[in-house]
């Protein structure tokens, strides 16, 4: 299994509070991604990173920011959480050197915003 961990695994917070989710990889993969999974929507890309300090927006980036100061860590921040951000969040990694172009996923973080 690819070495990807997410923390925390579960979090309950209140509307208006800041929240930071962490993704950590030990594979030295160049690309890292944050997705949210909601019923009826599948996985939707929030932000992704193609290198240290190189990030770009996905299709549902409003209300989220990211940072990547080291190859192994990719942080997702909800500056002021809202109930619509209640979801399961997945981190994923991939690398151009992988001819299979496979994405490897972390275990997910269930976030509940009350």
């Amino acid at each position, binding site marked *: 299994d690819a070495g990807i961990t997410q923390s925390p695994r579960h979090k309950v917070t209140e509307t208006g509070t800041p929240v930071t989710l962490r993704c950590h990889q030990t594979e030295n993969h160049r690309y890292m991604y944050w997705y949210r999974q909601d019923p009826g929507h*599948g996985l939707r*890309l929030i932000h*992704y990173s193609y290198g240290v300090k190189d990030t*770009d927006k996905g299709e549902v980036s409003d209300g989220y920011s990211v940072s990547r100061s080291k190859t192994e860590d990719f942080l997702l921040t909800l500056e002021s959480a809202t109930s619509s951000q209640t979801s399961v969040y*997945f981190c*994923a990694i991939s690398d151009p050197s992988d001819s299979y*172009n*496979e994405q490897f996923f972390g275990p*997910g973080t269930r976030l509940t915003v009350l």
Partner: protein
Amino acid sequence: AQTVTQSQPEMSVQEAETVTLSCTYDTSENNYYLFWYKQPPSRQMILVIRQEAYKQQNATENRFSVNFQKAAKSFSLKISDSQLGDTAMYFCAFMTLASGTYKYIFGTGTRLKVLA
């Protein structure tokens, strides 16, 4: 923009039977990759099978095979000899390198239940 459509939100199959999950996609690119991922109740996403668009031969992995029809932009997954452990959500995904970025687009998923 590329899109991926899974038109079957839920399906069920009897143990040992065969089931086919459908996936269609839309793209103007010629070189791309297609994937099927499995998400069991544990929530862990697991790659089931992948297909390169430039390969005409359909990919197979043990009991899992695909029917890739490039002209029709169709990529269905066939599960043979279904097992209880195949009960999961299945996601079809698409990736192209044309834009210079490695972004993956997922369908909305098909929830498969294997019945004993």
